[in-house]
Every structure is written in structure tokens, then in C-alpha cells.
């Protein structure tokens, strides 16, 4: 037990070393979980929409006025068509 206790004491700086690692771990793990959840939520919502013919309107999301980024963007130079 003694070597473990010595190690955890961090030469008397335990109160600074471990909180620093804890804060970093907390923030990174929170981001990992949040990012993963966002993907899951969006994937599930899309699947639900695909699976239903008449979705309960307004339940899954609000339509936005702005152009969605996955619409084809006409302002982009079309590399392929320029070549052909």
C-alpha cells in the first residue's frame, strides 16, 4: 500500500496534479458523450421520419427558414460539369 500512497501523494502536489487531470478528463468525457449522443439522436430521428408515412408534425423538429446545408449549393463551382 505504501508505494501506492506515495505515488498518489505526487510529492506533496496531489492537490494540484489530480484536480488538473480530473478537470481535463471531465471536460473531454463530457464532450465525447455529448458528441456521440448528438449523432444518435439525429440518426434515430431521421430513421423515425423515414419509417412513418405521416409523421406527427411539429413533434420531431421545427422547420427552419434557412437553407439546409445538405441542399445542393448552386453557388459552388461544379468541378465535374465544368470538365465534361
Amino acid at each position, binding site marked *: 500500500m505504501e508505494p501506492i500512497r506515495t505515488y498518489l501523494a505526487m*510529492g506533496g502536489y496531489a492537490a*494540484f496534479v489530480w484536480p*488538473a487531470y480530473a478537470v481535463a478528463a471531465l471536460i473531454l468525457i463530457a464532450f465525447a458523450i455529448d*458528441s456521440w449522443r448528438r*449523432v444518435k439522436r*439525429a440518426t434515430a430521428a*431521421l430513421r423515425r421520419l423515414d419509417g412513418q408515412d405521416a409523421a406527427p408534425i411539429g413533434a420531431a423538429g*421545427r422547420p427552419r427558414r434557412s437553407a439546409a446545408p*445538405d441542399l445542393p449549393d448552386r453557388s*459552388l463551382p461544379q468541378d465535374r460539369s465544368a470538365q465534361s
Partner: protein
Amino acid sequence: MHRFANPGRFLRLADRLQPWLVLATVIAFAAGLYYALFHSPADYQQGETVRIMYIHVPAAWLALFAYCTIAFASACALIWRHPLADVAAEAASPLGAGFTLIALVSGSLWGRPMWGTYWVWDARLTSFLLLFFLYLGHMALAQAFDDRQRGRRAAAILALVGAINVPIIKYSVDWWNTLHQPASIMRMDGPSIDPSMLVPLLLMAVAFQLFFFTALLARMKAELLSARLRTAMFNRLRSGAAGRAG
């Protein structure tokens, strides 16, 4: 860049990369933490607090890297209207803020035993705190308008203006008398740090970098899928209305 302008293609690429990125991130963190916490010596001056450096320095690098990513993406969004650039900037912003917070907190926890204070208003620390506020402003501005596109445009302009802070942070330790020490890795004459400490530092830097890319890709993917969902909902609403009218 335009090859990945198609969100569908980007999503397929992200799906293929994701498992490998997650795996690489976990391995890099395992190796980095092993070296940082077990397989590296205590510093002859700093003692065991030198281990704080293995998260502080990578977090600070990534805080700057994420900001450069946002500034670059914002330029692409404003100049070429690249459809993924806004999504990338918005996804990177909270991650960058997180890295900045880690760097600030870990630095302050190192400063207390080594400098005798949690905080000083020296040029490096102050400009880094400003970076944190720039991130918060960027996130708030992107969400501040009902019209998403307008919010993103305003955020992109803020990101570009704020980019002036990046060289200020980098060179603050040379331009002003700071309590913060000058660079010891990114130097013209090579790193001035012992290999036994350079290895854990670089491993942790790789781990942080991989984490950033993995999380960025996931958040961009989630946003693109949500956008697709919004479009589908909108189309359904519209066709439903047309059906009733006809």
C-alpha cells in the same frame, strides 16, 4: 476542398473514418497517460507538478488549433460559401472552448504551487482568457439569430476578427515580460526539453489532436443529419399542405 463540399460524400467519409479515429484516440490517450503519469521523471525544479504540463500544453495547443480551424473555415464560408465550412466552424467552437478551459484551469493549478498564485494578469494569461471569451462569443453569436445563416455569417466575421489574438497569444511571451515561460517546443533551435518528458508531451498532444478530429467529425455529422431532418420535415409540411389544398 470542394471534393468534400458534398455533404453526402462527407457523411460517407466520416462514417468510414469514425471507428478508426475512436480507436486511435483511445490508444493515444492510453499511451500518453501511461507515460505522463507513470513512465516519466519528476522535474528537478517543478517536482511532480511537471505532470500537469502533459495536459496543459496539449490543451493550449489544441485551443489555438481549434481557433485556427474556425478562422479558416469561416474564411471558406464567407469567400466561397463552402456548405460544410459553417458546419465545421460551429462544431469546432465548443470543443475549442473546452480545450481553452482545460488549459486555463490546469495552468492555474500549476501556477499556485510554482508561482505562488492561481492567476496573474500577464500578457499570455490575459490573451488566453480573451480566447476563451472569443469562443463563447462565437458560440452565442452563431445561435443569436432566428435565421441560422445570418448567425453563422456574423459568427464567421467575429472569428476572423478575433484571429488577431492567435499570434498575440503565441508571441506574448516574447513581446512582453510575462510570468509565463517562453516556448520550449516550438522553437527555431529545436525543443529544449529532455526526451523523457518530450515523449509523454507529444503522445498527449497526438491524443488531444485525435480527440478533436473525432469529436469534430461526430458533431458535424450530427448537424448535417439534423439539417437533413429539418429539410425532410419542411418538405413533408409543405406537401401535406399542398395535398389538403388540392
